[in-house]
């Protein structure tokens, strides 16, 4: 075990959904901060490229890659154990996997909705359950879920996506209530639009931030152990107002 210097408070991190977007940027920043990072995502090529980038960067950060589809729920417990063994421990777990297929205003696609729930909710629960169980035993650790401002209100655009993020928010809140008193931090990250492949080609992206900024703010919030962080933070008052607009009025707004 190398007990040498690191700039982040964590030495070993596991990142699910690491191949692109905020996840990839989180991986780079954790690696640059001296963390050993396990990268989990479906696409091996992207993971290998990312790992090569992290390993080549100066500093002690190193990456291990584990190709895995988060909807293969049965494989999660074994893979989680393998990763903890390979890393020699675990201090930080981040679930950053998420999908948001394009849904037309008049479209009702169970196929798309199902994939949203499977990745954004069931995959998250499969992984977070493992991490939560471990951190509960350790009496330490930080769990981070990348949710979205979309979870705060059911808007008309993509019903299943909003529902999935609301479910993730509530699940994380419940985990926090379970584990908070045991010394485990559970952090809900709620970004607004972030410039990633997920949002590419979409119009109307207020307060758009880069994946780099989103990742920096995510790690900062996780290090401070805040319960819920909006990214950027101006979304907090905006969502506060939006959450409190009565449904009859909300329904009439073009949101």
């Amino acid at each position, binding site marked *: *075990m*190398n*007990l*040498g*210097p690191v700039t982040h*408070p964590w030495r*070993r991190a596991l990142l699910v959904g690491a191949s692109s977007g905020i996840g990839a940027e989180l991986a780079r920043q954790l690696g640059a901060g001296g963390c*050993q990072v396990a990268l989990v995502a479906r696409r091996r090529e992207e993971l*290998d490229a990312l*790992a*090569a980038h992290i*390993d080549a960067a100066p500093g002690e950060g*190193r*990456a*291990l*890659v*584990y190709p895995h589809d988060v909807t293969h729920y049965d494989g999660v*417990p*074994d893979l989680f*154990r393998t990763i*903890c*063994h*390979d*890393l*020699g*421990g675990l201090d930080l777990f981040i679930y950053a996997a998420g999908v948001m297929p394009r849904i037309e205003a008049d479209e009702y696609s169970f196929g798309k909705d199902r994939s949203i729930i499977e990745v954004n909710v069931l995959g998250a629960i499969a992984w977070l359950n493992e991490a939560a*169980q*471990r951190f509960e*035993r*350790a*009496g*330490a650790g930080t769990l981070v879920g990348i949710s979205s401002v979309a979870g705060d209100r059911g808007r008309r655009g993509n019903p299943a996506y909003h529902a999935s993020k609301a479910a993730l928010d509530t699940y994380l809140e419940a985990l926090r209530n379970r584990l908070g008193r045991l010394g485990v931090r559970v952090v809900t990250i709620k970004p607004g639009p972030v410039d990633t492949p997920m949002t590419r080609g979409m119009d109307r992206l207020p307060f758009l931030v880069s994946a780099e900024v989103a990742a920096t703010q995510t790690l900062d919030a996780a290090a401070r152990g805040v319960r819920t962080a909006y990214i950027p933070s101006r979304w907090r008052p905006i969502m506060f107002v939006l959450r409190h607009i009565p449904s009859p009025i909300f329904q009439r707004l073009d949101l």
Partner: protein
Amino acid sequence: MSSSPAARPRLVPVTSATPPLPLDHLEPVSAWGGSSRVLSWVYRPTTAGGIEEAFALARARGLSVGLRGAGQSYGDAALNAENVCLDLSRMTRILAWDPSTGVITVEPGVTIRQLWQYTLEDGWWPSIVPGTMFVSLGGAAAMNVHGKNAFKAGTLGEHIHGFELLLPTGERRTCSRTENAELFHAAIGGFGMLGCITSITFSMTRVHSGLLDVEAIPTRTLDEMLDVFEQRHATADYLVGWVDGFGTGTSLGRGLIHQANYLAAGVDRQPAQTLRTAHQELPPTLFGVFPKALMWRAMRPLMHPPGVRLVNAAKYHLSARQGRHHYRDSHVGFAFLFDYIPEWKRAYGPGGMIEFQSFVPAAEASRVFGAQLVRAQRAGIVPYLGVLKRHRTDPFLLSYGVDGYSLAMHFQVTAANRARLWALTQDMGTVAHEAGGRFYFAKDATFTRQTLADYLAAERFQQFRALKAACDPTSLLQTELYRRLFGTD
């Protein structure tokens, strides 16, 4: 998986037919000093058969096994993250005791506390004890511990007649100076990497009283302290020097020596009384009123450099004012200073503490320890406690013994100083190593493969490697310390 130094390959490929270890065996395990904390699959066998079962359990899953006694090593010597931790603290039977010869056979989990409580009323005290009575004999043998009488009685290994060693291959070896002598001299001090001691036989020291004659000797400098040690070590039974790490300039290394001697037969006219366990117990309160269980909390607000500087200065000046003086103390009271304040390490705060101890030849002690203290002060990380002891050489393979001195220093670890502290220990280690210094696994938390290769003679290193390969061909036995210093290849 991409190749990377972070990857810890399993020992054998795991087949999916092997069920994983049950989660309720996954427990947090800490370095005693609190500077690192890991999760391990912890098993606590009570018999040699149980140890073999745990070996098999780990082997089937490609996991390594780290042996742990009472978990009193300051650093990572008894940690094995994400693998099996074999905690021997339930193997606490005393197997044979002969009060006419003072020879005792115990299981590895028996502690020094259990030992003296068992033998003292018969007039026998453990020949070697460290500063705490909570260490296990198995761990103490694996580390080859020493005490304040190291210059006279050597290390624990010198009092060991023999032991039973269970090898990871399942073979059992009886080791003594005449049987498997090479293994005997390597497993003592071999930090649990060659096999698991399942029983151990050693001799105790005859005492004629439960009391010791103690003399306190304040010393104004490190050199004065070394002079007193040189004058006294021929006649003293125990010698230990407390060093105030905050002393600078002409006060560098100022401190207080305690010398203790056994009472000759007949001096204590009521030996049966003073040898009683009840006579030896440490006081339940400090300064007569303060419950000792709460003491670490009371110390916590003082555990920063200005606070410790003040406390140390007060202690030094009070003892200097009192001057040299004699008194009598119980064996327990003199030997186990660290046990006066239960959980004192917690006073160091959430980052914990580490100890740094180097052993250098007598002629180099003044220069090396002076330089180490100055370097620590310059780095702004002053040791809160310094302890000087006299040593001698011993015949064990991974011996840290020198005909000289050791200075042990306690450092507080914080998130802010950790990197600088690790660098400081490398720096202090280099100073000691260049003077022919040696190091001690029970205390170490920071050294690297390079440090070990530098100071351990190449042939000793190779001989240990060869024994490891013979006793444990699959490297089943591993700890964090082993991987840090010896690598897994």
